[in-house]
């Protein structure tokens, strides 16, 4: 009881100050019109993903060989019911893009969630305990960093076989080192600060200090980095799908749609072009939004 009461004072002070800064940053972010528009686009994609069955005009996996490579509506041979045309199996491209947003967004979010969780834990441990824990974690980070990302993921996919969970793991296996490095650096800096020293002097446990004292104060840069990395991961997933190591057919994934259309590109440009465009728009929106976040939240990038 006593120790808890004693502890709460500096915590409250720190987090209270944190909150005002957070609010100010948030206001700054909200005033960035371009960033807000991008957030809107991202939200739109998320809604598409969630409500895909209600929005998509057709079943994304319904094949019709008589509609094979049907052009988009505005070209001769197209129909308005199949706005963006059909792929080599006569499936509606628009519907597949709408459903494909589920894969991109889910994998992007899941990989970043797993990677950030692991990265925070490892980074906190390395930065707080230092010594051999730090050496071990840092060595592992060095080793993983020296692997080319895509080869590592290709190798893991070959090892584990295709599947949604496996893609998430294949990407997360390396992705966690990025938040880990950020967290470790921040932790090293933060652990020497007065209020942490104070908590330690008051006998708080290591776990308590890491989670309650240090973590809240280093969360901003982690969030900024994570949003930027989501964009990256979405492109990586599409690249894996493009190389034929992605989700299983007939599940629509933007990367595999581009790959499928590649062979047909001379005669049917629409099969590859539209899903690629979808990747570009979503990733661009995430990048613009995260740039806004960074400008607002990370003081080092404020000009």
């Amino acid at each position, binding site marked *: 009881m006593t120790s808890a009461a004693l502890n709460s004072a500096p915590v409250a002070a720190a987090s209270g100050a944190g909150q005002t800064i957070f609010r100010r940053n948030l206001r700054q972010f909200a005033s960035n019109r371009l960033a807000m528009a991008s957030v809107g686009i991202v939200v739109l994609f998320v809604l598409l993903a969630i409500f895909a069955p209600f929005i998509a005009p057709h079943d994304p996996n319904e094949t019709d*060989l008589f509609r*094979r490579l049907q052009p988009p509506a505005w070209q001769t041979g197209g129909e308005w019911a199949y706005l963006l045309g059909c792929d080599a*199996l006569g499936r509606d491209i628009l519907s597949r893009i709408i459903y494909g947003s589920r894969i991109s967004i889910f994998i992007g979010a899941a990989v970043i969630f797993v990677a950030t969780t692991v990265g925070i834990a490892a980074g906190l441990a390395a930065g707080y305990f230092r010594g051999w824990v730090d050496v071990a974690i840092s060595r592992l980070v060095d080793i993983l960093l020296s692997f080319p990302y895509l080869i590592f993921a290709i190798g893991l996919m070959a090892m584990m076989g295709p599947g949604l969970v496996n893609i998430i793991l294949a990407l997360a296996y390396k992705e966690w080192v990025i938040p880990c490095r950020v967290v470790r650096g921040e932790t090293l800096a933060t652990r020497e600060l007065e209020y942490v020293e104070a908590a330690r002097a008051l006998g708080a446990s290591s776990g308590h200090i890491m989670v309650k004292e240090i973590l809240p104060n280093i969360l901003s840069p982690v969030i900024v980095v994570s949003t930027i990395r989501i964009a990256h991961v979405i492109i990586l997933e599409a690249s894996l799908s493009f190389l034929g190591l992605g989700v299983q057919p007939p599940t629509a994934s933007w990367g595999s749609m581009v790959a499928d259309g590649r062979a047909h590109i001379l*005669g049917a440009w629409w099969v590859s072009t539209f899903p690629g465009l979808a990747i570009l728009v979503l990733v661009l929106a995430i990048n613009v939004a995260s740039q806004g976040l960074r400008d607002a939240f990370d003081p080092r990038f404020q000009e």
Partner: protein
Amino acid sequence: MVRLGRVLFATAAALGVSLSAVQASELRVGFTLDAMTLDPANHRNRETETIIRNMYDGLVTRDGDMKVVPEIAESYELVSPTVYDFRIRDGITFHDGSPLTAEDVRFTLERLTAEGAMGDGQTSPRKSLLGPVESIEVRDGNTVRITLSEPWPILPAMLPFQEIVSKAFVEKVGTEGLATQVNGAGPFKLVDWRKGDAIIMERFEGYYGGAPSIEPVGKACVERAIFKIIPESASRVAALLSGDVDIINELPPFSVEQVKNNPGTDVMTVNGTRSFFVAMNMEGELFSNPKVRQAAAHAIDKDLIIDRILGGNAARIEGILSPDAFAASTDLPVYEYDPEKARALLAEAGYPDGVEVTMDTVGAYKDIAEAVASLLTKGGFNTRVAVGEGAQMTQKWRTKGGPKSGDMYFTSWGNGSLDPFDIFTPTHRTNDRGNSAGYSNPEVDRLLDEAAVELDTEKRAALYRKAEQIVNAELPYLYLWVPQDIYGVSKRLKGWRPSADSRINLHDACVD
């Protein structure tokens, strides 16, 4: 060439450089894969062989009708069921000018078949392509005798796959040197191998002319021949359309129209040798039921897929053999497309509400497997396609007798020799390498084993026909089709036609 020459000339003129004299006649092939090695004895790869075969000749080759005819051999005869004699033609020289002798032939075959003959204790990976070859000896100067440990009637059919090397050259450069250097007796010499990019060859002026029964006999027509490696099919087609190459292999069926409509290019096809089929796991409960297998057969509209996806460029099959293969049957019963009947048969088998199945395949077949799956789905088999890598699928399905998991496997088996021994035995004999259905019928095993050593052609064909009747009735596989090999060619190309064994023989090809 013309276009490129013009562009180059314009470029050169723009840069103020004089362009060197007249261009030599040059033929370019846009090809899917690079050679792995140039050593004819050190690979198991068809693309590698296609390239190598233009620089090396074999004892025998195949003519336009796929008949085995003498090439480096002048003639050959079957002395006894286990002994063949090959007389070697006089006056053949290797690229370096040295004469090709019976000793070179013996050395080549020895290198292919003897344990450890490649040096460093290595054995040629092509050894098993020569089956029961036991010994090779030179008799009276220009005859090579091949002795077999048991009768093996398909030896002549397998020999076109082996190319003759120079003993002196191999001894000089070693197996390591032979991987990148060529001293063959074929119509073209190696000029440069730009790894991963191109193989550049020039005409061998001292060529003996090739097989006398295949016109024209003589030196190659073009002065230079190039295999340009373009793995992407769209890029390959684009290279053909822009006049950058004169022949491309594996023209996708959906690009046929475009190539035909382009003024300077055309399409050539030849019946292929690769049979496509779906293995049904007969070790599993579902497909151990013959009614279920029949139901699946009735659910597939082969004609629709051949027409819509393969552009009509395939022949349907009711058994494993291609219509062109030795002993192919023409009177096999047909399982007509009838989804109603498929569902009825499924219901009879105890699945009135249909079944859920997974069909495995590899990335290259994904499109067409999905089309098959959608037809199966309409026939009561709710089919999900699972794409894996070739390596994973082979391990999962070609278990050689080991336990199998999975429902269906969409796959194919090549049959370059067009002899049933190469395709029927591995896919249908109990526990054999390619038996992905887990099929086992002692009667079929017996027929296949007998046919393998039967020397009488008629009797041998009868054995295979009987076996095919049985498997057509028992249906371990859904036999689908044999696609044609489709080539895109430029109209300035003359004298070349595609070959059913997927070889691209440039000896007779000319360009205007």
